[in-house]
């Protein structure tokens, strides 16, 4: 990891209680995320993934009341001092329920809303709208009402609306929960493409460990508001027992190799997490025999 640079996102001893709640939603979070990383946050429902993400653009503590201790810095800005609408110029966020994010009468206007707020000229707007709708695969639906779209299309639209603002940090909360399997891969891949080509920092809360293993280069596991694991996918997914305690599983290839590793005593130190890694390791083992 590029530890020499300043982190683009930093959490310092962050603890957060929702109003009336006795148990903390986040507890002693210390976290550094660097520019250009593709970060996946893993955890069960209610583990604190969404709460953590809401801290990233200042919705916590500016819009959701509650008790926050510690500080969150985005590009060096303390989120306590900047309202969400200003941080929105840096952080683009897609929430898990797409329908609640849509307000306009047509798809094009929905995408335009953020651009209008940024003061983009109408000519550039037209271009950006065409571009992002192409990216998410909604090109032909420009004039449709957002409320006539299917759940998956609405989610793509919400993503397009956030992407249009060209954020430096792009946060998605379970973006694939409404999307069909093919669309799921597509959306994650779009984020990966933006991450590689535009150097956009992507932060993704996700259930699908296979997808995470494929694309992420930084994995954070949280359980009951605490960070349990924080490292590369390789490091995190090798901790099978710790993950199981949090109610999470590892990618199936990792699990498979873990089982034969133990039963056949192969002595593999680093379990593979991707199919291609597994393939080469398997071929290796065959050659040895």
């Amino acid at each position, binding site marked *: 990891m590029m530890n020499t640079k300043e982190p683009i996102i930093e959490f310092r001893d962050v603890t957060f209680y929702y109003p009336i709640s006795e148990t903390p939603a986040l507890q002693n979070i210390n976290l550094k995320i660097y520019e250009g990383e593709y970060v996946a946050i893993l955890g069960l429902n209610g583990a604190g993934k969404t709460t953590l993400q809401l801290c990233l*653009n200042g*919705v916590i503590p500016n*819009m*959701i009341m509650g008790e926050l201790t510690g500080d969150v810095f985005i590009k060096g800005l303390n989120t306590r001092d900047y*309202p*969400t*609408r*200003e941080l*929105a*110029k840096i*952080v*683009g*966020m897609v*929430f898990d*329920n797409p*329908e*609640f*994010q*849509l*307000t*306009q*009468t*047509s798809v*094009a*206007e929905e995408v*335009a*809303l*953020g*651009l*209008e*707020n*940024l*003061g*983009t*000229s*109408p000519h550039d*707007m037209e271009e950006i*709208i065409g571009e992002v709708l192409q990216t998410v695969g909604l090109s032909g639906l420009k004039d449709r*009402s957002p*409320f*006539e779209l*299917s759940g998956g299309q609405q989610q793509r639209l919400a993503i397009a*609306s*956030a992407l249009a*603002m060209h954020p430096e940090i792009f946060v998605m909360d379970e973006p694939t929960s409404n999307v069909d399997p093919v669309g799921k891969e597509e959306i994650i891949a779009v984020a990966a493409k933006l991450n590689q080509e535009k150097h956009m920092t992507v932060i993704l809360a996700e259930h699908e460990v296979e997808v995470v293993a494929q694309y992420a280069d930084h994995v954070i596991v949280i359980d009951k508001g605490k960070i349990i694991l924080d490292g590369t996918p390789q490091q995190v997914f090798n901790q099978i027992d710790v993950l199981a305690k949090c109610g999470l599983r590892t990618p199936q290839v990792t699990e498979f190799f873990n089982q034969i590793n133990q039963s056949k005593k192969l002595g593999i130190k680093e379990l593979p997490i991707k199919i291609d890694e597994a393939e080469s390791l398997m071929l290796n083992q065959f050659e040895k025999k």
Partner: protein
Amino acid sequence: MRGAVLPISMVPGNSVVHKIAPLPKLLWAVGVLIISFSTRNPAILGAMIVLGLFLASISNIWSSFLKVMGILFPIMVIAIFLQSIAPAFPQPWTPIAQLGPFTIYQEGIYSGLTLFERTFSMTIFAMVFIMTTHPSDLFVSLEKIGMPYVINFILTVTLQLIPILQREFATVLSAQKSRGMKGTGFGAVLPSMVPVFVGAIERVQQMSISLESRAFGSTGKKTSYRNVVMGVKDYVIMVVGLLASAVTLYWILVDKSLDWSRTMHFSPTLSVILVITAALIFVTFIVISVSKIIKT
């Protein structure tokens, strides 16, 4: 239930009326509104109805227009029946016919007819306006003449929320039905209020968070994606509308002979037929809507 839309909303089209900018159309609709409230002359009101129906017919909105009118017309028509037996008119009243226990008055027929014409002409123009104007275009135009952006935005979001709430009601109602609760009538709607409105509050909170996340209300210049350009044609239509309204209004105020309430006479048979027809239309409407409610 996806795609449920308001019965009164824009009908996309390419007609002459669609192509007029929102403001001139709004001006005409408001002009008709003012005139219809300023006069009781059946001829002027009738002329506006004819003009309104003509505009509706050239803007290709007929099917949606008739659907809405099918609901509004019976409600407007009942004015004829109610007014004829109890005119909102200074005494003395001239009785012209007897319909069972009801006495029909000359002034009542006049009053009922003009009241009906008044609401009818206003409604036609309002419908033509709404059905040929994209709400966003209207809001952009209003913003240009000084309506605050926030108020415009509230209007846009409200327009969006109504169909969503309709849909949510339907979902809650079917959930109640599937649990063996009553699924129709007022008794079913009442318990579904709580989940729908709690849901609505939650939705609005989520919406405000997501709007702020898209820099809504941030400092700096704001631009607008939609743009409405007023052409020469639009200005001409606007000026003509303004002049026509002003001249008609002046004429109504000056010319006292336009009040035909004592000079216009209705034959007893015609009056009875008119009143019975109005009452029948209204009763049929009630029967049809009640039977619809019971069926669903």
